[in-house]
């Protein structure tokens, strides 16, 4: 494929995957503003290194890898301070205000717990449980073995189970 058509294709793919990537970054950071910053930097890297994208790979995986790299860089800069959720607008579709408020609070809490996991556990958990990537894809994206993915996922789930135990009872 000629270079110009490659460029057009890349532009199309980026534009198409922007919302997904922003959502992924939001889940990683737990904060929309921080996610926006991360994605902007990630897009700079995409523009800089788009020639390294191999067409046989999934574009989403490639884009997520760049987002994770930027996220790790930011994390290293900010000494891994998880951003707790504040009173932002949530996607609350509940009809009963009381129940809705209670459920919304719990949903935010769960998200906050996921976003407060250690970086590697958080990445694995979000990629597999929320972005729907397979173990193999996650291992490839994070450049670790599948066994490592399994182990990390197990640790993350155990931690969340322990932290969210009271809510199992409540539910």
């Amino acid at each position, binding site marked *: 494929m000629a270079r110009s058509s490659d*460029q057009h294709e890349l*532009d199309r793919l*980026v*534009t198409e995957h*922007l*919302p997904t990537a*922003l*959502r992924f970054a*939001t*889940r990683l950071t*737990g*904060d*929309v503003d921080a*996610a*926006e910053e991360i*994605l*902007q930097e990630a*897009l*700079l890297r995409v*523009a*800089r290194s788009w020639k390294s994208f191999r067409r046989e790979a999934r574009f989403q995986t490639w884009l997520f890898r760049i987002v994770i790299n930027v996220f790790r860089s930011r994390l290293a800069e900010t000494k891994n301070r998880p951003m707790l*959720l504040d009173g*932002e*607008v*949530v*996607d*609350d579709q509940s009809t009963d205000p009381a129940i809705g408020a209670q*459920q*919304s609070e*719990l*949903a*935010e809490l*769960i*998200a906050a717990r*996921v*976003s407060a996991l250690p970086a590697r556990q958080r990445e694995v958990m979000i990629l597999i*449980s*929320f972005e729907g990537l397979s173990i193999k894809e996650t291992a490839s994206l994070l450049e670790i073995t599948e066994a490592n993915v399994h182990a990390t996922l197990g640790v993350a*789930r155990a931690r*969340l*189970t322990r932290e*969210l*135990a*009271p*809510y*199992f*009872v409540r*539910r």
Partner: protein
Amino acid sequence: MPAEDKDNTPISGDSLDQLLSDARWPVVPQPAVARVAQHWETVWNARQRREVFLRRMAALGLAATLLGAVTIGWLRLRLGDKSIADTKPLQEISPKQSAPTIEPTPVVTKALQSNDAAQHETRRPAIAAHDVSIDRTHGPNAFTDLPADVVPSRPPNTLEELMLAASDHKRKHSPTSARVAKPSPPRKLGSNSLVNAPRKTRRKAPVSAEPSPREILIVSGAIDRLVADSKVNVVKVGTELSTSAPNPEKLLLLTLSRGTRPQQIAALRLLAETGSTASIGPLLRAAEEPQLHAASVEALARLADPSIVREAARLEPDSELQRTLMAALLARGEPGALGEFLSFVENDRTADAALAATQLVKKPPMDLLFSTFSEPLEAHRIAAARVIGRIDGASTTQRLITMVELGVNRHEACIALLSSRGREATRYVNAAAQRDPSLAAIFSGARMFTQLDNPPRS
């Protein structure tokens, strides 16, 4: 439910998954997506523009490189053609054209010139002439051109390496020397016949041919004559040898390597008369033998390249032989040899010996020395002035006085006059200094250059 019960309640993986499915992160607002999309558009467009720019720059750079290469190639070709075209006329310039042009009044000039010629010849009869039309730069290698049975296969020693290196260096850097053609009047042998003998034209080593029995007889006869009588006229014997034997050099070198000491010395004396560049190597080796040293050095002074003679003079421990070598350089009457000689005058340690050597030269190359006054190097000009002053002579003094009066190379002429030991020069210096304050100042300034060779004048 009690707290303990709560803790003990088993939690399945499905329960966690169900709980996780309820997780709700802040909703990404549409403006945020729009901002990121806009950012991407900006970044991507800038990147594309940059890539286009870089591609164009690369193409421009390539084009510029190609253009530069073509231009350089073209210029080099043109300059090459031009330099070839320019060198031809330069080579045709005669030595007379490089001499200083003094423009005195016609009456004075004619009188001086005629006077100069007459007095010079009266004072110093022309007993030597110099055939200086030599092409050393294209001379054969002294070692490679030697006959195989004469040259022993050994590496050159330190002295030889030094001299060969100096020779190579000189060949690389010496400009094409203007040749000074001189008539060749009949020679007379004097006390310094070696110095004042006509310079042998540097000949290529003759093609090696087996000497005939007749040649062997002639050469051995000549050697026997010199061995029997050391005072025999070696020039005459050498001339006879050259005319009767076509290639005596090989036999002489053979004698040098295998003969007895007297025969070797005789061979060296004959080589000085009949030898070529092929003899330089054996002569350098023979110079290491104490008994053959003097004869070898004298032959080298005749045959070797000026740079080799310079090195030989520099390394020569015997002051008389050193002066002989220096005088040989001056006597050659070539710009290259004169440059080597003047370098001795410029050096404080060898200046006295070099100036004393001027007295050994019967007919120094005066025109060439005067032409040095036009050289850009002040050290060369001053050295030439000191040499001219030391050579002295009535005609030279008159020429120098004329130059001072006309303001032609006045500084150098003043140095030469101050270096002169002649009474006429002294008288003129004193009178001119009293008559003209500006000349007095010039003489005063020039005196510092001559204090090394002459005591202060009264």
